[in-house]
């Protein structure tokens, strides 16, 4: 069984300590280059399957420039059998096209990416394709679904566990359905799954690290121009840095209530008085309330 794990090398911006507005207040050291943690989780699930089944092989597939080379080699060292890079045969920095040129992240859209990956998976003969549920940089969460669509395969999103039955025909995945709900889903091969966070990639052994250090990634030539980009991201706004205000607990309260206030996120329950009766008396009630609280000062209002 051949498992393909899509690994995206990302530039992860974890801080905004820069001073220049043009750079969105991001300085170079605010970025790290790494393999997306969702994809690392996918790789770990694949490796666990490989531990169970001797016939399983795991291939890492990556698009785009090798911006996180040490990290992707670390993934390789963790236990993958080979690493395949999709490159453009025309020599352009892969994969580059009209849309990606104007894309703020300099990436092709999910439609194009899924096309490239789908062709690569077919080319490599992958039975099971795993990718991350989303990526930390773009977070479109589309590639997995589109990949399944293009390959015409069943798709389960956000899986957190993966195993295979004895016969080798059926996969059993656990899926997080949000808010702590879990589902167990059985699925036939070939299939496409996207993987949620929660599984940590194993540490590579030294012997594998050395092998991975000298490994020459396989290149898969794949032209992109046949596929016309369907989506285009025109702007990408960084969040404005906002000071966080944590209200001080109401000092008139007892210690217990103050602690409860902090624990409940300092939402203060609103209490009030419901005015009943006919319209006249309700208006009178409002005016009395406003006067009593010093919001209305003169009596002129009711003349």
């Amino acid at each position, binding site marked *: 069984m051949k498992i393909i794990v899509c690994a995206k090398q990302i530039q992860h911006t*974890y*801080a905004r*300590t820069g001073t220049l507005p043009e750079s969105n207040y991001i*300085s170079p*050291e*605010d970025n*790290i280059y*790494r393999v997306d943690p969702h994809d690392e989780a996918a790789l770990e699930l694949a490796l666990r399957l490989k531990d169970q089944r001797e016939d399983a092989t795991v291939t890492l597939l990556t698009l785009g420039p090798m911006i996180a080379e040490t*990290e992707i080699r*670390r993934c390789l060292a963790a236990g993958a059998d080979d690493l395949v890079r999709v490159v453009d045969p025309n020599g352009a920095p892969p994969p580059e096209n009209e849309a990606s040129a104007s894309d703020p992240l300099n990436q092709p859209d999910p439609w194009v990416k899924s096309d490239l990956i789908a062709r690569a998976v077919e080319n490599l003969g992958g039975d099971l394709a795993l990718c991350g549920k989303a990526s930390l940089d773009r977070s479109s969460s589309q590639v997995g679904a589109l990949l399944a669509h293009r390959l015409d395969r069943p798709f389960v999103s956000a899986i957190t566990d993966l195993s295979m039955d004895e016969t080798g025909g059926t996969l059993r995945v656990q899926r997080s359905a949000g808010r702590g709900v879990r589902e167990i889903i059985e699925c036939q091969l070939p299939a496409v799954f996207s993987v949620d966070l929660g599984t*940590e990639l*194993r*540490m*590579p*052994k*030294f*012997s594998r*690290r050395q092998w991975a250090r000298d490994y020459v990634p396989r290149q898969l030539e794949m032209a992109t121009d046949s596929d016309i980009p369907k989506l285009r991201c025109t702007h990408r706004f960084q969040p404005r840095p906002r000071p966080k205000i944590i209200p001080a607990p109401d000092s008139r309260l007892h210690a217990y209530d103050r602690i409860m206030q902090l624990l409940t996120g300092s939402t203060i329950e609103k209490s009030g008085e419901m005015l009943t009766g006919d319209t006249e008396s309700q208006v009178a009630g409002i005016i009395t309330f406003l006067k009593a609280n010093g919001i209305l000062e003169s009596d002129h209002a009711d003349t």
Partner: protein
Amino acid sequence: MKALLTSFDLLLIASALLIMTAGLARRWSLWRKKKPASASGDWGGLADALVKHRDILKRPSVGGAHLAAFWGVVIPLIVIIAAQFGFIIPQAPADLLSLVQDLAGFALLVGILYLMFRRIRGADSQGPARTLVPMVLLLIIVLSGFLAEGARMSILETAAIPWQSPAGWLFSVVSPSSPLFMQMMIRLHFFAVLLLIVAVPFTFMRHAAASPLNVFYRKRGPRAALTLPSIDAGQIGAKSVEDLSWKQMLDAEACVACGRCEENCPASISNKPLSPRKVIRNIREQMETVAADHKGLRNQPDAPLLETGVSADEMWACTSCMACVEHCPICVEPLDKIIEMRRYQVMGEARLPAEARPMIRDLEIYGDTQGKGVAHRADWAMHQGVPQMSQAPPLNGSDLDVLLWVGCAGAFHPRNQETSRAMVKILSAAGIGFAILGKEEICCGDPARRIGDEILFRKLARANIDRLNHYQVKKIVTMCPHCLNTLKNEYPELGCNLEVIHATEMVLQLIRDKRIVLKYPVADKMVVHDACYLGRYNQVYQQPRDICRSVPGVQLEEAERNRDKGFCCGGGGGRMWLHENIGQNINVVRAEEMANSGADMIGAACPYCLVMLDDGVKSLEMEKTPKVADIIDIVADAMG
């Protein structure tokens, strides 16, 4: 002893020596041809250890007994060998020699009886095996010697107590005045000596050969600094004993199982499965097994692995506090073997306690133990006007006295950030030209290294060294003893030689030079906790104490275990990031001990100790628990 030896006797002696040599050679083949280690002989240390028993006497009673027994063997041995050459010496020195001989024999008798009593009383069931045989032999030797002498004297029937031979006279009271008896005793003496010689390689007496050798080749230079393995040559720690260097094996061979390491080991004391003595014993046992395997004596296809002898719980319990190394009388270092085993587990097998993995991963991608990233590394210094190396105005060598190395704890942990700011306050007040690397500093690599990830350590160290070289830094001061140890003792092997001092050393100097004034009292009674990496690793014991003394109104107490006997806080060696599930918590044990000293403030000089002890103090069930503060904070507070 007056009887000259016959040629038959000489033959016997020669064969005894031959058996001994052959036996020793066989033992030595266990380690002799193994992996090289850089070690050079140290005559001075050897002489100190042998003549003065410097380290052995750290425990006076048993050390004294050993000293007595040692000289009780060596002096008569020299005298008797010399006597065989039949020198003619005048009466007076000969009498004196006889007296010395007599007293030495007596010392041996007393020493051996004491040691035997200790062994038989069996307080220490883990004690060295096969010690009784050589002890009984020695006892026979000394008793038969004295009885022979006594018999000689009762034959001569001297009336007065001869001053040359008081012990012999004592024995003459019980020994019959028969020449036959005397001859028998002399033969017994002679054969017992032969047996003892033969027994050296096969019994505990082996230590007489191996231990001095170990002292001779003891590690010098910075103590307990780990040596750099050549990773590319496949040195990724110890899977089996065969991965150890010959020096490390000699360590195991030399260990006399005295147990001093264990008695000072925080892991053993807090009931964890680790005992440094057991680690060393396991290594020796496995050396023997491996040797048997090579000879085909055993039918085991695989060499036994260290992991079968030393469990994961054991090797991960070590706090790398160095107490075992410090207290071993014969310079055995259990610590570096534990690290070698960790190296193999982490690098070779990628087996690491799950709790420590996020920390290692953070170091890999963010370069600090907290995973906050270099971008936030100077956050503690925000709006403090702390000069940074990279910022204008450029600091050149002349403006810059010292680089302040902050370390991960000082940069990110809220408690330790205070210490960093306090240090800035002190340095500014004293008018020192200093700067920090700010965002260009990353973890020094100590946590990775102690956990066994040498590859990561190197990556971090190289990056730091690049920065330090780039700015041509000459001198570094740091608040963290772990950084201190790494920068000062372990970076030189990577080609970075700088002057590195600890904050307490520098601050004390500033106080002495009156560049800062301590005006305000902060506590009445203080006690200083000796950080392992400051004290045992770098011999800074006095400075923290002197600083505390110069704070007005402070009375300094001492904890029960202090200075080189100081008890670890439990946070070193990567233990800061590991769970402590077995036995007592080391930090609580230490916190209780510190609190019992009656102090109302505990002064720590290490970010780990501060955090560990603070946690420990909080879980004490006491009416009034002491406060825990970093000594640098205390100084800053006292400055007002």
